[in-house]
């Protein structure tokens, strides 16, 4: 057999019917993650056709996008502030009950952002196919799963058949070598990669992150990297499972146990791509040259080192550069360091995990948030919230003057009312700096948790290496 990549192995193991010129492949889906925003219309289709969810046991349901993050609203002392969001939450409760699905509902101690809780539960495993009506499903590729976002029609297809019709994507090797410098993390790495290949550089591909730098990352860091694959246009991004992966999964509630564990690990070890496997495209990244990164425009590819200045758009016929800078209130050649900010958000499926909170706490310990700046810290899950409280991180945040919340997507996209005001500058650990993403007129600067925390302390865009 020809040498195969990690992607090729996972794809071919799930081909129920191979693709032909006329028809796409029928691809089996091992795990279907669902949330309240992209499922109501899919459940309506099932009802109209009188169909059940075919494999309820392969479905994991939670609520994260529309849910409030204030404890009073989550635990019911006061109603959910956004009426439409409350209706959506109730709709998922009803749909889960009607179709016999296990739901981690608003008051469940295991609830959280869907891309945070599935790995945390050990439901995300190497070699699986995982889909969700959410583009950041690429996160689960960190475990060597083929994981990608789908639309609501496809959510209905998975409900009804546990399969999807898919054309086989191409493969793209992202080879990363060298040591990341102190103060530079996984978020800086992926922002650098997106800046290098562009926001549509990955369109049509599944990425595979490889090389010594990637092998040296923790699972939390690998998830940050894979999470933002979609921001380069790639539906999926994968990392070969290794001892780091197995150590993370061992003992988690839904991971295999006993003899099943050994058998699973043996299967997972065979997933790594063959050394001679050929990719359709590749790029080499020198990790040792990367600095703390920050976006300056309105897509994640408009990114520079935090110490850098905004490149000129001269010679470009694309109106995007000028339009983006006008929206952001910046001009060509501006340095970002030292610019005043209004809001800092630490959280999201990109950077809402325990290690992200630990990084923020390193900076915030014994310091105060600058006057006039609002710092919102939202853990990725209720479990992470408990861990952060047990480790004393939450106390560090509160002592610094931060607002410490219940878990959810929150200010990453502002569906639940956690928004940034018009014209305000938000330094954010989330994944998208699109116009209006965090609120109408909001100006988002994407950074790592270290840079976010340092900027909160100074009240200005700050190089985190000044404070760590």
């Amino acid at each position: 057999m020809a040498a195969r990549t990690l992607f090729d192995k996972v794809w071919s193991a799930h081909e129920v019917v191979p693709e032909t010129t006329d028809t796409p492949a029928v691809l089996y889906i091992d795990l279907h993650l669902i949330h309240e925003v992209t499922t109501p219309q899919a459940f309506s289709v099932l009802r109209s056709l009188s169909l059940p969810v075919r494999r309820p046991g392969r479905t994991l349901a939670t609520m994260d996008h529309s849910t409030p993050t204030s404890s009073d609203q989550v635990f019911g002392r006061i109603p959910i502030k956004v009426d439409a969001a409350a209706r959506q939450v109730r709709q998922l409760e009803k749909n889960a009950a009607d179709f016999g699905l296990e739901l981690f509902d608003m008051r469940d101690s295991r609830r959280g952002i869907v891309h945070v809780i599935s790995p945390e539960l050990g439901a995300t495993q190497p070699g699986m196919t995982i889909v969700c009506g959410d583009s950041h499903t690429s996160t689960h590729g960190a475990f060597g799963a083929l994981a990608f976002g789908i639309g609501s029609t496809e959510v209905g297809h998975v409900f009804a058949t546990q399969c999807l019709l898919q054309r086989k994507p191409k493969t793209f090797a992202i080879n990363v070598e060298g040591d990341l410098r102190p103060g530079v993390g996984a978020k800086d790495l992926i922002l650098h990669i997106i800046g290098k290949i562009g926001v549509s550089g990955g369109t049509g591909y599944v990425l595979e992150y490889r090389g010594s730098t990637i092998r040296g990352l923790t699972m939390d860091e690998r998830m940050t990297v894979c999470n933002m694959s979609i921001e380069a246009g790639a539906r999926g991004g994968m990392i070969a499972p290794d001892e780091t992966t197995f150590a993370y999964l061992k003992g988690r509630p839904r991971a295999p146990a006993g003899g099943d564990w050994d058998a699973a690990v043996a299967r997972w070890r065979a997933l790594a791509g063959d050394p001679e496997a050929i990719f359709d495209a590749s790029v080499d990244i020198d990790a040792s040259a990367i600095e703390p990164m920050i976006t300056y425009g309105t897509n994640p590819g408009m990114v520079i080192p935090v110490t850098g200045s905004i490149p000129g758009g001269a010679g470009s016929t694309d109106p995007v550069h000028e339009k983006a800078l006008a929206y952001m209130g910046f001009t060509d050649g501006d340095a970002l360091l030292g610019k005043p900010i209004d809001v800092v958000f630490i959280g999201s499926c990109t950077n809402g995990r325990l290690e992200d909170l630990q990084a923020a706490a390193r900076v915030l310990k014994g310091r105060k948030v600058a006057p006039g700046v609002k710092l919102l810290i939202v853990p990725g899950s209720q479990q992470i919230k408990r861990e952060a409280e047990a480790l004393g991180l939450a106390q560090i945040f509160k002592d610094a003057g931060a607002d410490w919340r219940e878990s959810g997507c929150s200010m990453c996209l502002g569906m639940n009312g956690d928004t940034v005001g018009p014209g305000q500058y938000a330094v954010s650990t989330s994944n998208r700096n699109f116009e209006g993403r965090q609120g109408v007129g909001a100006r988002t600067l994407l950074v790592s948790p270290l840079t976010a925390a340092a900027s909160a302390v100074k009240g200005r865009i700050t190089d985190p290496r000044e404070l760590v």
Partner: protein
Amino acid sequence: MEPLQRVRSRTVVITSSNIDTDQIIPARFLTTTTKEGLGRQAFADWRYLADGSPNPDFVLNRPAAAGCRILVAGRNFGCGSSREHAPWALLDYGFRAVISTEIADIFKSNALKNGLLPITVDAATADWLLTHEGTEVDIDLATARLTLSTGASVGFPIEAFARHCLLNGVDELGYLRSKLPDIERYEATRPW
């Protein structure tokens, strides 16, 4: 779904590249539980001023845009989230096709499932369309060609099965369910 064979219309042009799904339909409108009525909110943050009145500078608010069913846009249209609300909003507004040099993967897949044609063309054709707003374009799905008012005609790529489903009004779920015996056989072979 109604069969779709041809879209013939004048064009509306938004020259920006990388138009993301948060622009097509901002997240605050995703709290809906149906597909209907999103057209009013398509491009909401570009289309309306802070007081809710139409922004006279935005192309969809110009009289010439009324009734146009084809949107021409800069490269990498539809990047960002997987929200199917994006094609639902464009369809509800009245669009039946989007033309660009590049269209993001998930948006393209969602568009095809709802009868919104995602058409990618070469850079020269795109440049001509971007600079000739309001021109009449004739898109023939059966031959996978579009014809410009100049008489020039170019082919466009479209996934064969999606085209078959659109031309014949066939629902993809029906086809997928016809494969259930294969799916059951597959499940029986898996280690779990």
